[in-house]
Structure formats: C-alpha cells, structure tokens
C-alpha cells in the first residue's frame, strides 16, 4: 500500500459501508420522495388520457388555473419589491434592532398556514375588526379574490428578502460607494451596480416564492370560501375533486402542479450554482480586502 492509500483509508469508510450508506439514503428518498412523485402521475393516467385531458380542460379547472396564475402574478412582484427594499435597508446600513427586524420578516414562516388565513378572516371577515365597515361599503375581501391574494402574500412574505439579505451583506457597500464617488445618482447606482450583483439571488428567491404562491393550500383554503369557478385555486380544486371521489381528475390537476414543482426544482438547481458563485466572489474579495 502506498502512503496515499493509507491516508485515504484513514479518512474515508470501507467500500461496503459506503455502499450500504448510499443504499440506505437512496431507499429512504425513494420511499418518501420518489414514490409520491410516481403515484401522482400513475393515478392521473389511471383512467386514460381522455379523462386526463377532460379533467384539465373543463371550465372550472381553467378558472382555477387562471386564479392561481393571477394570485402568483400579484403576490410575487409585491414580495419581490419588499424583499429588495428590506435587503437594501438591512444589508447596506448599520442600525440598532437589525436582528429583531430580520426575525420579524421571518415570522410568517413559523405560523401555521391555517392561522395565516385566519388572521385575515379576523380582520376583514364579517366577524372581524373591519367587517361591518367593509359590508357597509360593499367591499368583500374574505371568500373572494383579495383574501386569497392577501393570504398568499403572507405565506410567501420572507422568500425574496431572506435570499437577498445574506448575499447583500456579503457583498458589502464598496462597489456602491465607488459608483457614487464617480458621480452616479442613487438610482443609477442601484440599477447598474447593485441589481447586476444580486440578480441570481433575486431570481432564486422569485422561483421559491412563486412555487409556494401557486401551491399554497391551508391559508388559501381558510379565506377562499370554496366557490367553484370563482374562488377556487388549483390546490383547492384538487381537494374538491378528491373529496368527490373523482380521483383520476384530482390527480390530473395535481399532476400540473407537480410538473410546476419539477420545473421549479430544475430552475432552482440551475440558479443555485450561480448564486453560490456570486456569494463566493463577494466573500473572496472581502477576504482580500482584509489581507491588504
């Protein structure tokens, strides 16, 4: 045995242990992740393609798809703008209470989806704080589209911010300071220096935010009222079909959401690599500054 082989043997496991561990990990993932994935598509096609296409093209399904797209189209940009603003304030400036603010931004992640919906019912619902006033003015929020959008904004609230904050903290403020010294205005600095630096992190946050916005179930279910064709999102439509024992149809609509999840995963892994490069570059230049 060469010394190198001895060193290798000392710092890794014997081959049979390695393969046992790999097999165990893969078996676990196959059982808990692979099997449900397969079950969606097999069940969706269990009654044939005709039933499948009928299920995803019926008008009620289309209404649900449109509502889901509309909800995401409102919620994602709102949280994108918020994420950038919050990250700018938190990462580029030093102020007291920063940690508290970060924790507050993360708050919606620790709230149960059901409670996330309920808090808006208690404000805008008939029994809520603003209920009587809204009724007098003929405004409906709960059991209508605005409520669905609000609940979705709440559950996807932290996604963009929590991606950008660590990235922008690592990047520091030197490049922006240089741009300002050279005479750029604040907005020019933001668009020409900051945005290119954070674009992959931004995209990453948007991908995650969008997936959750389109897939949210619990919070939306509480505020929706389940009115077919009007306040049913795709996930709620899946639930209704499933509870009516239209299993193949339920899985057909679910398969669209699953495809969305798979696209999300693919996009996420493609972007993840670039985010890491950007973060590494930022940390590297920071380390160099410390050395000189």
């Amino acid at each position: 045995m060469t010394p190198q082989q001895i060193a290798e043997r000392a710092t890794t496991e014997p081959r049979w242990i390695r393969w046992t561990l790999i097999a165990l990990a893969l078996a676990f993932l196959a059982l808990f992740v692979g099997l449900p994935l397969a079950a969606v598509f097999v069940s969706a096609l269990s009654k044939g393609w005709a039933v499948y296409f009928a299920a995803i093209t019926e008008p009620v399904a289309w209404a649900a798809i449109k509502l889901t797209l509309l909800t995401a189209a409102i919620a994602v940009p709102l949280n994108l703008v918020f994420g950038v603003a919050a990250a700018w304030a938190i990462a580029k400036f030093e102020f007291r209470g920063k940690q508290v603010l970060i924790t507050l931004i993360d708050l919606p992640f620790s709230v149960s989806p059901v409670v996330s919906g309920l808090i808006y019912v208690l404000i805008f619902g008939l029994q809520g704080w603003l209920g009587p006033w809204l009724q007098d003015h003929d405004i409906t929020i709960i059991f209508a589209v605005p409520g669905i959008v609000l609940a979705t904004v709440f559950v996807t609230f932290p996604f963009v911010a929590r991606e950008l904050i660590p990235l922008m903290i690592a990047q520091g403020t030197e490049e922006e300071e240089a741009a300002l010294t050279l005479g750029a205005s604040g907005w020019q600095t933001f668009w020409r220096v900051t945005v290119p630096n954070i674009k992959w992190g931004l995209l990453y946050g948007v991908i995650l935010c969008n997936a959750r916005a389109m897939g949210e179930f619990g919070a939306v279910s509480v505020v929706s009222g389940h009115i077919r064709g009007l306040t049913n999102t795709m996930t709620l439509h899946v639930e209704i079909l499933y509870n009516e024992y239209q299993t193949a149809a339920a899985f057909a609509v679910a398969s669209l959401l699953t495809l969305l999840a798979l696209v999300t995963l693919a996009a996420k892994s493609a972007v993840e690599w670039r985010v890491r490069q950007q973060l590494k570059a930022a940390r590297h230049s920071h380390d160099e500054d410390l050395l000189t």
Partner: protein
Amino acid sequence: MKIGWKRWSVLPGFGLAMGYTLTYLSLLVLIPLAGTFLKSATLTWPEFWETITSPRALASYRVTFGTSLVAALLNAVSGLLVAWVLTRYRFFGRRFVDALVDLPFALPTAVAGIALTAIYAPTGWVGKLVPFKVAFTPLGITIALVFIGVPFVVRTVQPVLEDIEPELEQVAASLGANRWQTFTRVVMPAVWPAVLTGFALSFARAVGEYGSVIFIAGNMPMRTEITPLLIVTQLEQYNYAGATSLAVAMLVVSFGMLLTINALQWWGTRRHLA
C-alpha cells in the same frame, strides 16, 4: 458622525427602503397578528381557557405534537445520513438526487397529501403490502410529516459537512483514531448544532402543517385530528371565539419555537467561528 440608532453612511435610500419595509411588514404581518391577539382579548379568561383545554383540543395537541416529534426525530437521523452521503460520496445520479431532496418544498402540500394517501391507503402500493393500517392512523400522519420535513435537516447539515476541513480528519487519523472515533469525536461535534437546528425547523413546520396531513389523517376527533384542522372545523361552524383561542395558543407555541431556533442558529455560528 453618529445620529441615534443608525450609523451614518454615504449610500442613499435608507429612509425610503426602511420606511417601505416597516410599512409593508406592519400592514401585512404585524397588524393582522396583533389583531388576532386583540380578538382573543375580547374573550373572558375562563372562556379562552376552557376552549384551549377542552378534551378535544387536548387530544389534538397530543396527536399534533406526538406525530411531529416522531417525524422530526426520523428526519434528524435520515437527514444526517442523506447529507453525509451527498457530501462525502460520489455516485451516479448524485446531482439529481440532491435536487430531488427539495421536492417537499416545491410540491404543493395538498398534492403530497393525496399522493401519500393513495400509496398508504389499504388498497395502495404500500398499504396493500403491510399487515397493519397506515393511512387514517397517527402512523399515516407521521409519514406525511416525515415527507414535509425531509429537506430541513439535509439542507442545514450539508453546508456544515462541506465546510469541515479534511485536514481535521487526517490529523485525527494520524493520531491513531479509527474511523468511528473520528466520526463521533471530530465530525459529530461540528455538525451537532446543525442537526439540532434542522430537527427544530422540521418539528416547527410539522406542528403547523395542514395540507399534506388532512387527507391521510382520517380526521377522527380525539384520535387523528390535528390542531390546525380543529381550528378550521371551529371556523366552519362559525365558532370564531374557539378558532381564535386555538390560533393564539398555536401562535404562542410557534413564536416560542422561532426563538429556540434562533438561539440554536446563534449557538451554531458561534461554535463555527470559535
């Protein structure tokens, strides 16, 4: 120059960014949450206490916390295993498997719920093979919660395992430690905070989980009814006081767990730097 709570900076836009952040955060998160607590304050204390300690509520806590605890423990062990295999070994399809770990984050919970129910129902692929009932029992709930929690431990442990310098393990080996000793005395102390954080994250997520559980649970009061479902049931019966009381109880638990997780993460980074 230092004015009050903020250090002076040449960069512009602090007022605008901070003002927008605080307004948006207050309107969408803080005020609605505070509104819920205020709503519960309109109930009398006995009313509130009776709701959150009714036999049905207590049974739902047992189901929710019991299954969440078991699921989080399973996730801690399997998550460490998966993270180890993904960072230390090279095998065919590793990148694909690595991407698949995040599926539970990306897949809508309702879809996961009906898929798991189809698999574990008495006529399903797995349900048919095992001699006992899985779906519509606490075991079924636990399986759904394990699915939901898969990414948490893997994704918190993975970066820590990647950061451990190989020299550390080489030194341990050259000083005469066998592989198991190196693992337990060198690797484990370094990843322990991350495992604990991942465990806490997956437990916290499991406690509030709704979509993936309600299909597989069977939802029998006192036996397989989780607390979030009990809230929905109260709401559907227009019992707003009951729903609010239970929601406040859950919020207090969630905030407590959030603080614990923050403390764990702080502990982890401090150990990392030391």
